[in-house]
């Protein structure tokens, strides 16, 4: 185990389990509310998936912050990149297999569960054979992979207006928006802790930054959605993303000032060594 990346291990302002429940429930509710699109034969309800993505990103970023405090030796981005690597593989599998079985509706659930399984196995292998010796690595990689998969599914649903595999292939994968979504999801999950780490890192500020990056992901999904599902539906996602970004960024700015105060007051170094 190398030097910790900052902050205290094992102290939480918000219980990680609560954030996990929020991430899973919020993510799935967001994705499945897009069913309204199919029921009412429209595309304007796609924005629910964007909100679901923000919830999943919060969960992923929170787990990244917990595991990175142990010091991975390779920097925070590696775990985010690993997460979307596992996430995209499992997501494509889940959506594809449910389409082949003729039950498209369970695609997101299969993708999510597969991602969690791949995450747990890789976490175990890395701990066991490579000897990273991070006690929470298995649970963390499991949750980060799950969050990454849910984020990818939610953003892809927002852009394609449906969680059906063929719609996603037509609207997200073939035009190449999937590459944009892949890298945006990765950055949204890894950036919050990467930007906030240090001795004064606090969970509430990191989580707020995760909401900010989530809103940015939603804005980008909105721009992609304008070209894939139509001007009005895309514009709703874009406008909501911008509104949420402004709200969350103001909150983040307040928290930054709150946490910076303690550093500001530490005083100057003595001029001569005594």
């Amino acid at each position, binding site marked *: 185990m*190398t030097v910790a990346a900052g902050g205290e291990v094992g102290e939480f302002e918000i219980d990680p389990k609560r954030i996990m429940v929020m991430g899973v429930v919020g993510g799935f509710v967001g994705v499945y509310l897009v069913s309204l699109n199919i029921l009412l034969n429209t595309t304007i309800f796609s924005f629910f998936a964007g909100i679901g993505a923000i919830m999943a990103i919060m969960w992923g970023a929170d787990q990244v912050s917990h595991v990175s405090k142990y010091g*991975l*030796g*390779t*920097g925070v*981005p*590696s*775990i985010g*990149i*690993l997460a*979307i*690597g*596992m*996430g*995209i*593989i*499992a997501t*494509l*599998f889940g959506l*594809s*297999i449910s*389409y*082949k*079985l003729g039950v498209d509706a369970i695609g997101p659930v299969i993708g999510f569960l*597969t991602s969690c399984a*791949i995450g747990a*196995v*890789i976490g175990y*292998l*890395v701990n066991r*054979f*490579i*000897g*990273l010796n991070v006690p929470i690595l298995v649970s963390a990689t499991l949750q980060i992979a799950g969050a990454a998969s849910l984020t990818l599914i939610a953003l892809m649903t927002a852009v394609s207006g449906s969680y059906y*595999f*063929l719609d996603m*292939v037509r609207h997200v*994968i*073939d*035009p*190449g928006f*999937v*590459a944009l979504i*892949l890298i945006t999801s990765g950055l949204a999950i890894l950036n919050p802790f990467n930007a906030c780490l240090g001795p004064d890192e606090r969970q509430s500020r990191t989580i707020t930054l995760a909401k900010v990056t989530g809103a940015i992901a939603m804005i980008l999904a909105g721009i992609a959605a304008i070209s894939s599902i139509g001007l009005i539906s895309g514009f709703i996602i874009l406008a909501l993303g911008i509104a949420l970004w402004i709200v969350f960024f103001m909150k983040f700015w307040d928290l930054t000032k709150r946490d910076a105060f303690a550093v500001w007051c530490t005083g100057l170094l003595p001029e001569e060594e005594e």
Partner: protein
Amino acid sequence: MEVILLILLLMIGGILVTAAVHFVPVGGAPAAMAQTTGVGTGTTMLATGSGLTGLVSAGFMMESVGYDISNLPLVLASGAVGAMLMICITMLMGNIVYIFGVGVVPSSAKVKFDPITKLRQDLYVSKGTEGHGIPTVSFVSGTIGGLLGGIGGSLVYWTLLEINHNPAMSGIFAIGFFFLNAVIASYNIGGTIEGFHDPKFKRLPKAIVVSTVASLMCSIVAVFISTGGL
């Protein structure tokens, strides 16, 4: 039978990527300040940069010759050349900055004499640093890394295309596969490595074990990804 062959090819691709990363001189954040040998960025960034260039060049070759099995060597070679070019240009530009910008001599702190040029290294390592720049041995090692990574990446891409016949889907899956194996290698080398002469290179078998299991799992999953029926 054919399915098992496809899974096997995907696994070989994944293992090649993991092995490739161990050859690339990754310096990480310290190298960005010329305080350790290697290119000043993380493992995943370097591997991804060269791997994706390999994918693009392999895809370009496949577009012009068609994805018949007899063209596989041509596609793999094209991917390898693409990845090697990318990593070589990165290392060359890095060296130009280190030599003419920072003003340091490319030198390795892990060996006393460069195994290829036989030139003395330790005299040129600045005090308080772990070497700097990309010496000849690391450059050669990085090129081998590009070769293996390019072959691995394009093998994965070709195999996936064989399964689902959709270039966009194969491409994005290959990127995910590449990320995963690159990060496994990155955890194994713990952030920085100089190349095949670095003592950390001996850890390679451990990463191969992890990569084999992880790649097997992802390959089994990959066979089911297509827009066709079961």
